């Protein structure tokens, strides 16, 4: 066989293909999702969370009772008629627990979201600008987080003159953002000084590109993981406030309110405390386990 010139065509040198990677390309998020899926515990926790959220949204239509409707069936133990029993005023506990879940989850998710967004922005600005601005901003963080919690909460609930979700949320958020701000600032500082960012900078990559390509993906994971861990702590704080008598008021209810009401009758009707307590514990547990899984999945260092 002769190799003549006609058999070949010059296709040129495709520079764009030079860096092509043979395996299917995955984005950061796709990859994270793939790894999260492999973590059975995290997936299980996620399913429980979805279930709790679903029940909180549709709980009272599932059991057929309104959570504020009183009846003469007071303090009934769990039965087919009332799955979680009834409370002192004859209200169906299943409906109440999941009506409470709506508020508790709302406080948890909204609170964590608000503080995380604010804290992240604050922390990144502080770390980026650096110098005196950083010092001043961090002093503010220090001072805000040193103000006794209860004073702020009481004052705000009085200033807003209601015992609704809004004032509790605001009170929790006003102190809560500091931790996230510190965390994000630390993370950004570390990144700014890391080898690859310094390398990128030396190569003349623009600030904007550094932010979008390196800073955001690498801080995002920390922020998201922090978010999942913050949600239960807000649910916890709300429960604590209810216990101190600063919770939200009827017709709304929350797990904290239900549990602290249940505590009073614990010796005689333990189930009245058990179910809200179980929900708090289950939610905390699920968020923690899910957060663990998410952290592992999002950590670029663990990427294989």
């Amino acid at each position, binding site marked *: 066989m002769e190799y003549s010139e006609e058999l070949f065509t010059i296709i040129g040198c495709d520079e764009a293909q030079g860096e092509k990677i043979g395996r299917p390309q995955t984005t950061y998020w796709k990859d994270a999702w793939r790894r999260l899926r492999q973590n059975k515990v995290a997936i299980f926790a996620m399913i429980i969370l979805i279930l709790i959220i679903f029940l909180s949204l549709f709980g009272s239509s599932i059991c057929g009772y309104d959570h*504020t409707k*009183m009846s003469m069936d*007071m303090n009934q133990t769990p039965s087919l008629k009332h799955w979680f029993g009834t409370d*002192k*005023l*004859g*209200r169906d506990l299943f409906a109440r627990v999941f009506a409470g879940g709506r508020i508790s989850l709302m406080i948890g998710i909204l609170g964590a979201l608000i503080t995380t967004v604010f804290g992240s922005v604050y922390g990144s600005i502080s770390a980026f600008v650096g110098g005196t601005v950083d010092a001043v901003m961090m002093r503010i963080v220090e001072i805000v987080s040193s103000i006794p919690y209860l004073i702020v909460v*009481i004052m705000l*609930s*009085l200033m807003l*003159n*209601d*015992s609704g979700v809004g004032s509790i949320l605001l009170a929790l958020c006003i102190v809560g953002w500091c931790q996230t701000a510190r965390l994000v600032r630390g993370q950004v500082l570390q990144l700014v000084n890391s080898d690859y960012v310094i390398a990128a900078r030396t190569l003349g990559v623009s600030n904007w590109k550094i932010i979008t390509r390196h800073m955001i993906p690498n801080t995002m994971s920390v922020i998201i993981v922090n978010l999942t861990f913050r949600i239960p702590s807000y649910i916890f704080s709300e429960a604590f406030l209810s216990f101190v*008598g*600063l919770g939200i*008021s*009827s*017709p709304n*209810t929350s797990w904290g*309110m239900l549990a602290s*009401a249940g*505590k*009073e*009758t*614990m*010796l*005689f*009707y333990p189930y009245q405390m058990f179910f809200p307590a179980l929900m708090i514990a289950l939610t905390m547990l699920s968020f923690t386990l899910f957060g663990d899984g998410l952290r592992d999945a999002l950590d670029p260092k663990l990427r294989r």
Partner: protein
Amino acid sequence: MKKVFAALICLVMLMAAVGAMAATQEITVFRQNEPTTLDRVAATIDEAGKFILWDTSEPLFRIINGATELSGAESYTYDEDTMTYTFVIRDNYWEDGVKVTAQDYLYSFQSMVDPSNAYGYISDIYCIENAEAIYAGQMDVAELGVTAPDEKTLVIKLNEVTPAFLEVVPLYPQRKDFVEAKGDAYGNDVDNFLSCGPFKLTGWDHNSMLTLVKNDKYWDADNVKLEKVNVLISNDNNARYSAMLNGTLDYWETNDPDYIAHFESDAGFTCVDLYTPTLTFVLFNGQDELLKNTKIRQALSLAINREFFVEAMYKSVYPPAYGLTSSAIGINGVALRDVAPEPVKVLAESVPDPRALFIEGLNELGMDPDPSKVTVKFSISSGATTDDTIALYQAMWGEILGINVEADVSEWASFWTDCKAGDFQIGTLAWSGEVDISFLFNLFLTDSAQMPCFTYSEEFDELVKSANKSIDAQERLDKYAQAEKIMMADLAAIAPVCYRVNKAVLRSNIKGWDYNVFSTAGHRYVYVED
């Protein structure tokens, strides 16, 4: 090793405690909170402090089993013309052996009217000559109508007839040299307090426990049988319940039907009704655009299903209230309820449909006659039963009147600040009377400004004031009854909801307890039966 040691110590202590309890005249009772002070004339003296003082101090008179009895006084005379009481002081001794003299009682009165002490219950003693002027800083303390000619005699001159003087006026001694030596610290710790009552204060672990031991120098020490009274501080129901069961606590007061049911079925405990002069009621703001209408207020009052309320909240341990005072409160053993029916019950009979009355009220006000467009703001202070209470009112007014109820919860101090400023629409609270039936009525006098209902009536004022000064018990009761009807039914300034009747639970072998309302006997006659 250390843990084993600690466990051993616990065991020994437990055994010691059990052993001690079986043999001696010792009981353990509780208070909800730490006494703010044991200084009877301090501005912040509270119920817990007064409770301790029944045992550790000696008033001239005590209320025992419903009647006034001579205690710190040996005898007394009253001159009607000059309105003067003359007391002969008994031979009694302070715990350090110094004699209790008339000067000690005099000093106590002088401290009360001294403006710099800002004594809170001052209006109780305005009946004493010049007390009001001295307290306002217009006269000198020396001009008070109380004198002590010698150490056995105390003379008190009144400026108006006061039938309830012996019940209302606090008649406790304080020793000048001791109080002045301690200054502001008087009454705040064991070392800063001097007892002269049946018991003396020997220990005070703040926020935890007070220890009272029999006072051998007390004049009636022979009749005081208890050797020791421990007063534990706790406001956790579950803790107190388990303390009752495991023998730590001997006496408990509760309104919780579940606990009561348990103790009533146990022969080891005695349960007794404990009437308190307390009324739970709904307060209407008479200045409010909606609530200034009498029919609206009456309709709201009648729409409260009191029977359901007490059943739901207290399993009917508390009786429903349709008037100002319960069946336990009256004058000289005759209750107000014996002479007059409860006014709200009478009103209810003439109004078959509260909703119709409410709509009538709306029409009178020229408002939209549709109740479902009305939203009232319901203020309440935060507490263990707050949320249930709100839910009940939302249900009752929502179903019967068809109106909307929006809750406003705040803790007591700001709730009460708002109420007093008239910054509320409808509020609910419980108020306790002190010592005498007149107290609850005086709350609603126009000029007392105690209760910010802003629905006042001159007729009511006149009736109450003349009743307060009347010596004839029957006449007093009649006037109170008329006044009650005006306030509760005709005007519906407030809506009574329930009376407070707690259950006293105590070990069956403890005897001699005085359960009467207003009792100031303390533990003087209590004893443990073998």
